[in-house]
């Protein structure tokens, strides 16, 4: 089964985005309309395959996929990008672009130095708060340290990603059509 998958990937004339999903998985259903829209947009240029995670556990293990939905972009049979969790169309678009071009998508989020500085500052503020036994001002310092440290890794946090994409979708929601209005 596994070899068959990789063989098919290699022989496929077009780049492929593979959607690893399961019927019981809510976030998988949530991204379905987005995936349909994108696959229609990229029809003839990028193929979309759906793989039921329940039916192919060995394949998922060999690809080190530990959560669904996971989308993996392949160009010439080689993985170029992957994304786990529900996401907005804007977040899924780079996967299709990566599959098409074969270039790894540019990772958004803080640069390495920013991450390092924020983590260092967050840790230092945390240590200061511990020294002050979290009393009064030191509790504020601890909170500040947490915020600074989180700002270093926010883009890697699945909870933040899920919440922010929901929030963005809510904010950009088109006004509902009121029949008879």
């Amino acid at each position, binding site marked *: 089964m596994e070899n068959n998958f990789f063989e098919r990937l290699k022989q496929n004339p077009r780049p492929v985005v593979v959607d690893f999903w399961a019927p019981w998985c809510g976030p998988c259903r949530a991204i379905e309309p987005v995936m349909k829209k994108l696959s229609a947009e990229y029809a003839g240029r990028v193929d979309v395959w759906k793989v039921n995670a329940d039916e192919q556990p060995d394949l998922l293990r060999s690809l080190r996929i530990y959560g669904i939905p996971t989308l993996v972009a392949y160009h010439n049979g080689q993985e170029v990008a992957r994304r786990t969790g529900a996401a907005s169309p804007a977040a899924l678009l780079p996967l299709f672009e990566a599959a098409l071009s074969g270039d790894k998508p540019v990772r958004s989020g803080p640069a390495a*130095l920013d991450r390092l500085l*924020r983590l260092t*500052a967050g840790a*230092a503020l945390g240590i200061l708060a511990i*020294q002050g036994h979290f009393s009064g001002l*030191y509790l504020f310092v601890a909170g500040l340290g947490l915020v600074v440290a989180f700002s270093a890794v926010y883009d890697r946090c699945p909870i933040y990603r899920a919440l922010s994409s929901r929030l963005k979708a809510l904010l950009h929601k088109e006004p509902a059509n009121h029949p008879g209005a």
Partner: protein
Amino acid sequence: MFKVNEANWDRIARVVLGIVLLYLGLGGVVAGGMGIVLDIFGAIFLLTGLVGICPLYMPFKFSTKK
């Protein structure tokens, strides 16, 4: 909105200095009014180092970033 005007070395130096000053102030090494002054300067250095923008450079159009 604001352009980053600090080089990497500048930012690292500010964050380190900010942490040291905050340690001296908040950590209780220097007490009293001087401690508060160190806290304020430490917070300013830490903040400007983290965001990479120094408002003092702006009016002079100075930048350590090439």
